[in-house]
């Protein structure tokens, strides 16, 4: 199994441009998440989804949008990119919603630079 696959791995955007980070998982997990990782700051939750057609905001959703049309895919869209969105983005999935019992499976990350 491939697990969680993210594309692209690296990308440079100009201020004001938009783009979509792709995430797909082949583990039939209902729950999927997008995090951003900034140096020295740990991971912050952007959006999450509990199943196809259902999404909700995390801690830092401003400037982002998500959709979940299938179980496998959970793309993250950046609208009007700003330098503050320069970060490493991680997609993750889990079988259970309850983090007490389930672990998160992470992709390898997408490193985004906004200039």
């Amino acid at each position, binding site marked *: 199994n491939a697990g969680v696959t993210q594309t692209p791995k690296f990308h440079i955007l100009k201020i004001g441009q938009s783009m979509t980070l792709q995430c797909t998982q082949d583990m039939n997990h209902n729950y999927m998440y997008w995090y951003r990782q900034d140096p020295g700051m740990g991971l912050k939750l952007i959006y999450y989804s509990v199943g196809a057609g259902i999404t909700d905001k995390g801690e830092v959703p401003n400037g982002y949008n998500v959709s979940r049309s299938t179980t496998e895919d959970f793309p993250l869209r950046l609208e009007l990119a700003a330098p503050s969105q320069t970060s490493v983005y991680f997609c993750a999935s889990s079988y259970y919603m*309850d983090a007490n019992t389930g672990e998160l499976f992470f992709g*390898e990350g997408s490193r985004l630079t906004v200039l």
Partner: protein
Amino acid sequence: AQSVTQLDSHVSVSEGTPVLLRCNYSSSYSPSLFWYVQHPNKGLQLLLKYTSAATLVKGINGFEAEFKKSETSFHLTKPSAHMSDAAEYFCVVSESRRNTGFQKLVFGTGTRLLVSP
């Protein structure tokens, strides 16, 4: 709100010596705690988790952690470091989101483990 504090941003050890990565947590009730590891240019991988069962938790690759409620700590240890242990380690606490049942993970800022020959 729950939080975790990783007391060292960097830890350097020699191969074959013990590893200690420190984590303190803040929680208004019994937390679930995790350690994740991130190797360079890779995603995070679960090392071990504490969910109110045994206070000494064993994980993968010889790591273990002990939950100490009186000290609000969950330190990660390994008796003998290997070169392959060089990575970033994150202490994580789960937090319940009211009215939704959603368990949110709160990440520490990470500790980079350096292992020298």
